[in-house]
């Protein structure tokens, strides 16, 4: 009689700096509508399904649903929509627009969305829910990242740590990329047995979401899903952001460099200058 809850956390990238948004390949409203319907579909599947949504951009990340400030009675139904769904829709719409207008006033420091931070927040949220579970119940959680970002995440080590934490917690990370093949996120999916998918046609975003990301991991085995891509496990070097096969690794903080540097740029430790390796010829003298 073990009852299983299924939790889906959607990490929604709303940074407007990306190519996808700027060049009007998909309008913000379409994008948000698609995601809202997708989230509601997850709730619709089963009464035990739970959902949480985190918005992220280059400045901040924030939970927009569940919303503790939303009072039950303030919302009265005006259409035939089911109440739970209109609650989700209402809080998403309100909180996301607040979030965007808030951050529009602030200075943009990087062009990177803080996906790592959002993942970390989500993992904390999941572990809190797991602690609060009643005996004999289990929680099935996964994270879906929807992003239009193109750059590789610059906090490689930190992000990888988060991914391995997710793997340890049995949290699956799925990624729906709006435009680019992002090596780092592909690795994250591969490690946690999630799906990485690049949407080929943005006007059908909702259909892609429903087809690929709605099924729970349990049922994915039964449905025919697109075959996994081959994942490129080469890391980026920290100095030039290029994919490398062999490089130098800092013994303290595990930063990766393509060329030797006397001081680690990440943790500022001083390395010894490399001496030539002792040749094999010496041993033969004996």
């Amino acid at each position, binding site marked *: *009689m073990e*009852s299983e809850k299924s939790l889906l956390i959607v990490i929604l990238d709303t940074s407007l700096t990306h190519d996808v948004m700027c060049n009007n390949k998909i309008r913000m409203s379409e994008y948000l509508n698609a995601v809202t*319907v997708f989230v*509601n*579909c997850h709730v*619709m*599947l*089963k*009464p*035990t399904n739970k959902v949480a949504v985190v918005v992220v951009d280059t400045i901040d990340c924030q939970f927009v649903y569940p919303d503790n400030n939303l009072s*039950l*009675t303030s919302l*009265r*139904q*005006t*259409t*035939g*929509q*089911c*109440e*739970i*769904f*209109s*609650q989700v*829709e209402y809080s998403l719409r309100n909180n996301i627009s607040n979030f965007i207008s808030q951050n529009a006033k602030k200075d943009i420091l990087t062009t990177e969305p803080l996906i790592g931070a959002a993942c970390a927040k989500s993992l904390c949220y999941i572990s809190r829910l797991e602690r609060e579970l*009643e*005996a*004999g119940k289990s929680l099935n959680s996964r994270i879906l990242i929807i992003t239009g970002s193109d750059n590789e995440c610059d906090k490689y080590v930190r992000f990888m740590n988060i991914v391995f934490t997710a793997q340890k917690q049995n949290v699956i990370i799925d990624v729906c990329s709006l435009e680019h093949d992002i090596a780092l996120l592909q690795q994250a999916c591969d490690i946690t047995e999630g799906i990485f998918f690049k949407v080929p046609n943005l006007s059908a975003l*909702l*259909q892609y979401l*429903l*087809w690929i990301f*709605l*099924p729970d991991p349990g*049922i994915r*085995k*039964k*449905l*025919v899903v697109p075959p996994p891509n081959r994942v490129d496990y080469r890391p980026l070097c920290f100095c030039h952001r290029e994919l490398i096969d062999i490089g130098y690794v800092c013994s303290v903080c595990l930063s990766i460099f393509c060329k030797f540097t006397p001081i680690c740029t990440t943790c500022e430790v001083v390395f010894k200058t490399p001496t030539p390796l002792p040749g094999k010829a010496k041993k033969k003298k004996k």
Partner: protein
Amino acid sequence: MSESSSKKSSKHDLKSKTLHCKNLHEYLKTLSSSVLDRLYIHPITCLAVYRELSEIAKHYIIRIIFVEQPVPQAVIASWLSKAYAKEHKEAVEALTELKIWKESSVTGGLPVWELNPVFKKHIRVALLGGGKNWFMSSHMEADTKPRDIAFLDAYAMERWECVLHYMVGSHQQEGISADAVRNLLHAGLMRCDNDGSAIITKEGFQFLLMDTAAQVWYFILQYLSTVEDKGLDLSLCLTFLFQLRFSILGKDYSTEGMNDGLLIFLQHLREFGLVYQRKRKAGRFYPTRLALNMAAGQNQSDVSIREGYIIIETNYRIYAYTDSNLKVALVGLFTNLIYRFPNVTVGVLTRDSIRTALRSGITADQIVGFLRMHAHPKMISVGSSILPPTIVDQIYLWEQERNRFNFSEGVLYSQFMSQNDFETLRDYAQDLGVLVWQNERKRTMVVTKSSHDDVKKFWKRHSRGNS
């Protein structure tokens, strides 16, 4: 040959009929298609029906819900990997039965599945919005004395236990109306004794051991079957029930705009604790957890309403941490109670006590299910198997003890004129797989009752051919 239609005794079927609680799907199948069509007009029913579908079927629907034209059958079949063809078939069957989609073909003869347009339209409304308002959420002022969830839970449980109390015969007639009693009688959970007082039936005992959500659902189903006699509209009542199911706990709803029939229905629900109303004319009501969990099924109910209270040890002792007479009475159905303290009752499971329960019509499955359902949180947290396996096995063994005979109905064929005739008929029956028993020396055989006609026809043909 003479064929004596002496039935092998079947009336004394020891295995008593177990109380079968239909789920929503089975219930809807029994409804006529016109009622079903009227139901699909309400977005909320579409949603309720949708939730009852199998996982595969749910994904099928969600994939085609935003597709405007019918989808070829072959395409849908290709969504599921080949190893799960059986599940595909079941899903397709369920969807056809509920008239959610129907078979048709496009030009070119390609067989397609076409989603029921009424269903499609209204489930979209439920999901996306638009359409008409629910009839219970017209705007109103905030409640001056809002009730919190804990209060509602307590209220619901108290009302529901009132019904159960009445059933176990605590002789406190207060708080239960004639209507509810009539419903109990109608459902066959109780029957009238000679002197007019109601006593509990075998089914009633089984009913007591079900979990609360199932009890409520069973009760409501029985209620709904009488609803049209009372002059209420069945589809309207069902829709209202579904709305309750998808409402939010701890929120108040308005009765404004509800017609008289629904208001009567609401009062009945109030009596069973499915909704809370301060006064009959209060104009607002709160749905309780009973209404929300109703028909959600054991595994799906969001939050269980009551804490487990039973601890069982491998020495067959049962500790029930409760002060409620009802709970003690329930445990007492199949245990010998030894001690009774203010907050705990101790009992022991014996062969006799279990057999008494079995004799009164309860099955071992139900006993084990009951124990598992009400297991103390401490027991649940210990390990995967909640109950000690020895106890569970022993209860089943005690039940099997009683089933040494298998009874099957049949027709006896005897007094064959020749061995040859006997063998021909016996082999024929054997080939059909309907032979129950045979004895060559006595030239006697028994075939199942359903195939009696077949065998008789064959025998007539055979004897005509010979003569």
